C-alpha cells in the first residue's frame, strides 16, 4: 500500500505542477526515405550550430516524426541516422518562441553489423525521455547473434536481459523480477499471444526473419499497458525494404522462408495510398517428412506470419498483422503407441493498426484485433473424451499522444472481450471444466514533463473488469516516476505503480515443459493486484558503454495455484488464491559498439509465494515457499565480436544459483485397493518399484549452481547474388551437467540420488539466405 500512496501523491503533484513552457521555441520534423516515405525509428540529434555538445536526441516516431521543445532562439544542427542508410543533416535557424519544421531524407546505403549502434541510440533516447520504464531493446541483428537452440529465438535472447531468468534449458518461457510466467505480456504488433511457444516451450513461435525489434519492459511500464503485472515484451514486425526480398534458412529445427515486396508507387496510388508493402513467412519443421522413409516421426510445427503496411497520402500509417501456428503430435498412425490420439495446439492472431496525426503534432493510434490460443487432444477410438483448452481475446483500443510544452500527454482507452473454455472429460465424467467470458475496459492518462534536470511522469490507469460470473471490479492504478539527471549521461530514477491482471495460467511452472491453461478472474479466481516500487541509476560512459542498476520491490495479491485437493462438489474451489512478494536488484553493463561488445547482467532476487497448503488436513494452514523461479543470483556475460573474414562470434557464460526443489523424506509402497475383495496390490509394471513419496518442506532444498557456456560462430558471404550466412552453435561447451531433476531412490540400501541433467554439449548448425 505504501507504493500506491506514494504514487498517488506524486501523480497529483505532477499534474498540478507541470505547466506548459511558454516563450520557447520548438523544432519539429520528419525523417523520410529517399522516395519520400516516413521513416520511423531514426535517431535524430540536436546540437547548437558549431558546438559538438549534444543538446538532445530523439527517435522518430511511428509516423517518422520528431520534436525538440523548450529551445532558445538560435541556430541548430540536426542530424538523423538509421541503420542501413546514410546520415542526413540540416541547419535550422530558430527564432525566439517560434516553431520550425524540417524534413530529413535518408538514402539507403547497405551496411551490416550496425544494429547494435541503433540499440545504443534508442537506449540513449529512452534515457532522456522515459522516467519510469526499465526497457531493454533487442533488434533482429542482436537476436540472430545470440546463441539459441537450433535457430535464433527472440525469447531465448530475452533471457539475457537484466531481471530475467529461465528455469530450465528446455523452456523459452521466462520470469521477470519474481513474477510468474503468466504475468508476462507478450505481444506481436500489439496483439497478445497467450502461449507463444512450440513443443511445450522449447522454442518460441516468433520467426526471427519477421522481427524488426523487441522491447522488454521489465518494470515501471507505462499506463498504456494493462493486463499483466510483471513485464511487457513488445515484438514488432519488419515490413522490409522498398524492394523485393527473399529471406530463408534451414536449421536443425525447421526450414523457413520469408518473402517481401511492395507495389510500385503508381499501383499503390491507384489504391489510394502512397505505398504498400509487406512480408509473409512460413516456417515448418521437417523431421516428420525427412524420416518418413525410415519411421513415423509424429510431430511437426508450422508458423505462418504476415505483415503489411501502407502509408496514406495524408501521412497515416496502416498496418495489418496475421499469425497462425500449430504444433501437431499425431499418434493416430503410430502402431507402436497403444493409444490413438492427435494433439494440436497453437495461436491465431489477426490485427490492424492505423496511426495518424491529430492536432498540433499529436498522434492517434487505433488498433483492433483478435488473438486466441487453443489446445485440443482428440482420441479417434474414444468419443467420450474431451481434452481441450481455449482462450480468445478481441480488442479495440485508441491511443492519443499530444506534445504539450516540454512534455506530452498520453491518453487512451481500450475494450477487450475475453472468453475461455477448458474441459477435461473422459469415461462419461467431467474431471475439470470451466468457462467464462468477461469484458476488460481500460482507460489511462499519462503526463510527462521535463523541468530542468528533472523528468517527471505521472499517470493513472483504470481497469474495469466485468466477468460473466462474479462481481465486477474497478482497479485504479496510479503510476508515477521521477528521474534526476545528475549529468547529461547519468541519472537517478524512482518509480512506483499499481498494476492489475485479470487472467491466469494454471500451468505448473515446476514442470519444465507444459502448455498454458488459461482462466479468467471471476467468482472462482481473484484478479491480481501488484504494487511495485523501483529505484535505480542509469547512465552512459563515453559513446560505447551504458550501465544501470535498479532495485525493486513487488507485491502480488491474488495469484492462484491449482487446488489439488479440491472438493468435486464445490465448483468454485479448484484454484487457491494466494499472494507473493519479490525484491532484488538488477545490474547491467554493456558496450554496444566496437569490434568486441561485452554485456554483463547480474540479477539478484528473493521471491516467495504463500498459499493454503492443500496437503494439510482441514483447515489448510498457509505455507510460504520459494517458487521455482526464485533464482537468487543470475549472472549472464555475453561477448559478441566481429572477427576477420566476416565472421561474427558470440560467447555466452551463464551462471545461476540453484533453483528450489522439494526433497522427498521417504518412500512407501503404493498399493491399489481391490474393491471386490478388499485386498491391496502393489501398482507398478513388473520390475518397477511401486512407491509413492512423502515430501519435506516445500522447495526448501536447492539444486547445485547452474553453469553453461555457449558459443556461436556466424560467417557471412555472397553466393550468386545472395547473402549467405552459415552458423555453428555449441550449447554447453563445457558439458556441464546442470540438474533438471533429482530422483531419490530411498528404498535402496544405501539410499541413492540420481537425476536428469539439462542440455549436455549440444552442437547445432544452420544456414540463412537473403536475396
Amino acid at each position: 500500500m505504501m507504493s500506491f500512496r506514494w504514487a498517488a501523491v506524486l501523480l497529483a503533484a505532477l499534474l498540478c505542477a507541470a505547466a506548459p513552457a511558454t516563450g520557447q521555441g520548438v523544432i519539429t520534423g520528419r525523417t523520410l526515405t529517399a522516395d519520400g516515405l516516413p521513416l520511423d525509428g531514426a535517431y535524430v540529434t540536436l546540437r547548437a550550430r558549431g558546438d559538438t555538445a549534444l543538446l538532445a536526441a530523439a527517435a522518430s516516431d511511428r509516423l517518422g516524426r520528431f520534436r525538440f521543445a523548450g529551445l532558445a532562439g538560435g541556430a541548430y544542427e540536426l542530424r538523423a541516422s538509421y541503420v542501413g542508410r546514410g546520415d542526413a543533416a540540416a541547419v535550422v535557424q530558430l527564432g525566439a518562441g517560434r516553431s520550425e519544421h524540417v524534413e530529413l531524407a535518408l538514402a539507403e546505403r547497405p551496411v551490416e553489423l550496425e544494429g547494435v549502434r541503433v540499440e545504443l541510440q534508442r537506449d540513449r533516447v529512452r534515457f532522456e525521455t522515459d522516467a519510469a520504464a526499465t526497457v531493454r531493446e533487442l533488434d533482429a541483428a542482436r537476436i540472430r547473434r545470440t546463441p539459441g537452440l537450433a535457430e535464433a529465438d527472440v525469447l531465448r535472447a530475452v533471457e539475457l536481459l537484466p531481471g530475467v531468468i529461465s528455469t530450465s534449458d528446455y523452456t523459452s518461457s521466462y520470469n521477470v523480477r519474481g513474477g510468474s510466467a503468466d504475468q508476462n505480456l507478450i505481444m506481436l504488433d500489439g496483439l497478445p499471444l497467450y502461449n507463444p511457444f512450440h513443443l511445450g516451450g522449447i522454442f518460441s513461435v516468433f520467426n526471427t526473419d519477421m522481427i524488426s525489434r523487441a522491447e522488454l519492459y521489465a518494470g515501471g511500464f507505462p499506463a498504456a499497458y494493462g493486463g499483466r503485472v510483471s513485464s511487457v515484451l513488445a515484438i514488432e514486425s519488419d515490413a522490409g525494404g522498398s524492394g523485393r526480398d527473399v529471406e530463408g534458412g534451414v536449421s536443425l529445427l525447421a526450414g523457413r522462408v520469408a518473402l517481401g515486396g511492395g507495389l510500385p508507387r503508381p499501383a499503390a496510388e491507384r489504391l489510394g495510398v502512397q505505398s504498400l508493402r509487406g512480408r509473409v513467412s512460413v516456417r515448418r519443421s521437417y523431421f516428420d517428412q525427412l524420416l518418413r522413409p525410415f519411421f513415423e516421426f509424429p510431430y511437426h510445427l508450422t508458423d505462418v506470419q504476415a505483415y503489411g503496411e501502407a502509408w496514406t497520402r495524408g501521412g497515416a500509417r496502416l498496418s495489418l498483422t496475421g499469425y497462425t501456428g500449430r504444433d501437431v503430435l499425431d499418434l493416430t498412425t503410430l502402431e507402436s503407441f497403444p493409444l490413438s490420439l492427435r494433439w494440436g495446439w497453437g495461436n491465431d492472431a489477426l490485427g490492424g493498426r492505423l496511426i495518424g496525426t491529430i492536432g498540433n503534432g499529436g498522434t492517434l493510434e487505433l488498433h483492433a484485433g483478435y488473438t486466441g490460443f487453443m489446445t485440443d487432444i482428440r482420441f479417434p477410438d474414444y468419443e467420450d473424451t474431451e481434452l481441450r483448452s481455449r482462450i480468445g481475446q478481441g480488442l479495440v483500443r485508441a491511443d492519443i499522444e499530444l506534445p504539450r510544452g516540454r512534455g506530452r500527454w498520453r491518453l487512451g482507452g481500450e475494450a477487450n472481450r475475453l472468453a475461455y473454455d477448458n474441459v477435461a472429460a473422459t469415461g462419461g465424467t467431467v474431471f475439470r471444466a470451466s468457462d467464462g467470458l468477461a469484458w476488460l475496459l481500460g482507460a489511462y492518462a499519462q503526463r510527462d514533463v521535463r523541468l530542468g534536470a528533472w523528468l517527471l511522469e505521472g499517470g493513472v490507469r483504470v481497469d474495469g473488469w466485468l466477468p460473466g460470473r462474479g462481481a465486477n471490479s474497478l482497479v485504479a492504478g496510479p503510476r508515477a516516476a521521477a528521474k534526476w539527471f545528475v549529468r547529461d549521461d547519468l541519472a537517478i530514477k524512482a518509480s512506483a505503480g499499481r498494476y492489475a491482471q485479470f487472467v491466469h495460467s494454471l500451468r505448473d511452472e515446476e514442470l519444465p515443459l507444459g502448455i498454458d491453461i488459461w482462466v479468467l478472474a471471476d467468482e472462482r479466481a481473484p484478479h491480481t493486484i501488484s504494487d511495485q516500487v523501483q529505484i535505480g541509476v542509469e547512465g552512459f560512459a563515453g559513446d560505447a558503454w551504458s550501465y544501470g542498476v535498479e532495485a525493486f520491490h513487488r507485491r502480488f495479491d491474488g495469484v492462484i495455484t491449482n487446488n489439488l485437493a479440491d472438493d468435486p462438489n464445490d465448483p468454485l474451489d479448484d484454484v487457491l488464491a494466494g499472494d507473493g512478494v519479490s525484491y532484488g536488484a538488477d545490474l547491467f553493463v554493456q558496450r554496444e559498439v566496437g569490434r568486441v561488445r561485452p554485456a554483463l547482467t547480474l540479477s539478484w532476487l528473493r521471491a516467495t509465494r504463500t498459499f493454503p497448503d492443500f496437503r494439510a488436513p482441514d483447515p489448510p494452514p498457509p505455507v510460504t515457499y520459494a517458487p521455482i523461479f526464485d533464482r537468487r543470483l543470475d549472472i549472464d556475460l555475453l561477448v559478441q565480436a566481429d572477427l576477420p573474414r566476416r565472421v561474427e562470434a558470440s560467447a555466452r557464460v551463464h551462471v545461476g544459483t540453484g533453483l528450489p526443489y522439494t526433497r522427498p523424506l521417504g518412500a512407501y509402497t503404493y498399493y491399489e485397493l481391490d474393491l471386490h475383495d478388499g485386498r491391496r496390490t502393489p501398482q507398478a509394471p513388473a520390475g518397477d518399484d511401486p512407491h509413492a513419496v512423502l515430501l519435506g518442506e516445500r522447495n526448501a532444498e536447492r539444486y547445485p549452481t547452474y553453469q553453461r557456456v555457449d558459443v556461436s560462430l556466424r560467417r557471412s558471404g555472397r553466393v550468386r547474388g545472395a547473402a549467405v550466412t552459415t552458423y555453428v552453435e555449441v550449447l554447453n561447451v563445457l558439458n556441464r551437467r546442470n540438474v533438471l531433476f533429482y530422483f531419490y531412490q530411498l528404498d535402496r540400501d544405501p539410499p541413492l540420488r540420481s537425476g536428469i541433467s539439462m542440455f549436455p554439449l549440444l552442437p547445432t548448425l544452420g544456414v540463412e539466405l537473403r536475396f
Partner: protein
Amino acid sequence: MTAGDVARRRRSTCAALVALSAIAACELQEIVTAQPEDVLVAEVVLRTGSARQTALLQRTTAPPGEPPAPGATVTVSDEQGRVMRFEPAALQLCLQHVDAITRGVACYVDAFDARFDIEPGHTYTLRIETADGRVLTGRTTTPAPFHVVEPALAACRAGADTTLTLRWRASPGAWAYIVEARFGGLRAALAERGIAIDAEPVVLSGVSVSAADTSMAFPGGLGVFSRFDEALAPALVALQQGLPAGVNTTIVVAAADRNYVNWVRGGNFNPSGPVRVGSIQGAGAGVFGSLTQAFLRIDSRSGSPLPDC
C-alpha cells in the same frame, strides 16, 4: 479412479517428460544420499457391506520382513463409543500378492470379538499407537447410503454388444464414485475378434466425479486410465462397442469420501514418485478413508438364467 489408475497416469506423464528430456539430457551419476526419515504410513479404508475391515501399516525405513510397528494397537471408534480393535494378521488377508513386497509391511484385521458393521453416513475415528509412543489419528465420514437404479435388478442379463447406462441415487457426502468391474470370460469373448488378453479376470475401473455425477456408460466408461496400457488398449477399444457375448461381470459401485479421493488422485508433481494427499494426523502419514458400496452383476452369457437388464 483407483490408486493404480492414478499411478499409471502419473507414470505416463513422467515417462513422457523423461522421454523428452532424454532427447538431449543425460542421466546424472548415482550418489549415496542421506537415509530417509522414519515415517509410519497407515492405510485404513473402511468399506460398508464388507465382512472384514483391514489396516495396512508400513514404515519408510523398514526392510522387507521387518515388522514396521511391532506392538502397535489399531482401533476405530464410532460415534456411540464402540471400539473396533484390529489385530495383526497374515499378509495375505491384506495383500493379493505377497511375493513382490519391497518394504516391511504389517496387516491388521478387525478382531472377531471387537468388531461392528460400518454404516453409511456415520463418522469414525482412527487411532494408532505404536510401542515407541507414536500416535496417529484420523477421522472419516462414510458417504450416505445409495442404491443402483439402473439396471433395476442387482443381477441381470445383457444382450451381446450392448451398452448399458449404470445409474444410481446420489450419495450425499461422496466426493466421487468409483466403479470397478471384474470381467470373467472376456479373454475368450475377444479372442474371437483376434484381440489377445494376457490374464483373467480383467478388472477395469471408472470414476464419476462429484456426488451429483451418478451414471456411467457400461462397459465403455470403464478403464479410462488404462487406455495407455499396451496390453489392454485393443480390448478397451472393443468394449466401446458394448459388452461382448459370453462375459460375466461383477460390479462394485463405491461412493468415496474426501480422504480416499485425495489419497488416490495424488498431489503435486515430484520426479521421485507420486505424491498423495493424506488424511492421517500425528506422528505419521497415510489415509483413513471410507467407501459406501453397492453391488451388481451383469451377465452376457447366452445361457444365463438371469432376467434381462
